[in-house]
């Protein structure tokens, strides 16, 4: 099992995220982390999606990436695991003062 990070630039319309989530499900992937946001303030229709998955079989995973890329509303998809990327985590903590 290796961790893979995929990012996709999509046109946020026609239920593209339903399609993509359905596709991950169809290929039996469990999503570990998912983030979606408007990619550029001046292009409200374009969103960037980042997904982290646990991957067993690299061949099957590459097939999934190709299937994602095939979607009409997907502009661009990259597997960034082996590239330089920024990973951020947010932790919320509650402190009890006694």
């Amino acid at each position, binding site marked *: 099992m290796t961790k893979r990070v995929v990012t996709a630039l*999509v*046109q946020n319309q*026609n*239920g593209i995220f*339903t*399609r993509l989530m*359905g*596709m991950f499900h*169809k290929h039996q992937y469990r999503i570990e982390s998912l983030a979606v946001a408007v990619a550029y303030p001046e292009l409200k229709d374009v969103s960037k999606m980042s997904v982290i998955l646990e991957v067993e079989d690299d*061949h099957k995973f*590459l*097939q999934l990436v*190709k*299937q994602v*890329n*095939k*979607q*009409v*509303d*997907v*502009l661009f998809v990259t597997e960034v695991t082996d590239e330089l990327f920024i990973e951020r985590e947010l932790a919320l903590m509650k402190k009890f003062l006694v």
Partner: protein
Amino acid sequence: MAAKEPMVTVETEEWSMNGADLFIQALKAEGVELLFGYPGGAVLGIYDALHRSPINHVLARHEQGAIHAAEGYARVSGKPGVVIATSGPGATNVVTGIADAMMDSLPLVIFTGQVASQVIGTDAFQEADIVGMTAPITKQNYQVRRVEDLPRIVKEAFHLATTGRPGPVLVDIPKDLTALQTSFLPEAEVKLPGYRPTVNPDPLQVDSLLDALQHSQKPVILAGAGVLHAKASDELVAFAEQYQLPVVHTLLGLGGFPAGHPLFLGMAGMHGCYTANMALYESDLLINIGARFDDRLTGNLKSFAPNARVAHADIDPAEIGKNVETHFPIVGDAKAVLQMLLSGEVEGPDSQLWLEHLEENKVENPYWFTDTGELPSPQHLIELVHKHTNGEAIVTTDVGQHQMWAAQFYSFSQPNTWVTSGGLGTMGFGFPAAIGAQLAEPDATVISLVGDGGFQMTLQELILLKEWSLPVKVLIINNGSLGMVRQWQETFYEKRFSHSIFSLQPDFLKLAESYGIKAYRVSSADEAEKVFSEVLTDREPVLIDCRVNPEEKVYPMVAPGKGLHEMIGVKP
């Protein structure tokens, strides 16, 4: 759903129309002449506009019949099949056909009505989230949110359905939009930045394939339905002849290469012929053009083409390398690929020994059947159908034994004459598909080969033969059972025939009679000869209930989990 923008009613100019008229206008702009559909509450506005338009509409008796007819029409004509259904149950009834078209890459555009925008998401009467439901089985789908988007979306839907790898596109239209007054809008532009199918192949990949071809000793072409979609049959024949390459077809590819051609080996796969399967197994260079290495074709992947270097030409890059490791990936339209292969003049392979070996296999291992039972064997009847239609008919089938026998024994020599449900394997497909095929080719002889099981799934469309004067010939290969299920139960489940044998059947002759259609029953090869010679090519619809030997099985066969070289039932 979040608060909606208020619906804009565009200022009514002197010359105005409503959303439904705009929709019909958009269909006309796409050259649509024929629709298959069924009206209902959410599409009343569209049907009202249709009433004012010259577009023909075939009123099926069930939405599933409408969509399979549209598939038959698309398969034979190469034009998109267009379907209209209402919201809720109308929309869910076309789901099987959409999945079928997705698997077999048929260009369909499906329009569904939706409840009014204001009540979407409230579980309103006849509401179903058809866009959500069909996301995994459509190439793309839309819900129209603003009436002014309609022309663009319709244009995009047709563009997507018919270009690249064809497939079904669904457009969901809320009822209120069809009633909105709108002024005439200028012609729409397709705006699809994420959609750029690669048509022309990379010359470097084609060159490396040609280079490998020169050095191969056992080359074989595997040709799929991609050849038919690309209208590339002539190029395929020319390429095979130029380098003397034997050709194997997939189930859906049949007709792309003429069956009578000396280089044709037959269909490969689970019920393909020995020669074709062994050619794939023994080959050292496998050239796949427009086939997707389906599991029913490859058998066990571990022993598929173990000695071959594999070239795979496909318009869909996601198919390449999916199931079979590929050494020469070529993304492109089959016609463009074959033209490029033809233009590169290299020395052909020295494959004389290989061709002789294959010819020997062909002579020694033809398809076979015995004719010993009281009732005629179905294979014999299909040979008779071939004889009495000169092998020139359009043949549509359902799914199961009769489908495999048709693929084996009706030798197809022309493209687009074979209409069958391959990927999804949809029973009930064959008969409505024949209706669509006949509407696409009014002068052709259309034979609908169906089983007694599948026919009973969509036989309500019989009335259309009468209504539209369609001379479809319905041949029920009647073994009183779900033959393929029965065969597997016999072979792999120790003859426990669990719910595969019908204890009661309708009288198909009386049924046909009640629809005003001539009908015959044949119970012997002689009777079949007589009836087929009289009615198969005349211009009347007819139903023939062909009683066949229920014990008959489809052979040869690659058992599940086995490789193509491990066929059983190759010889009697």
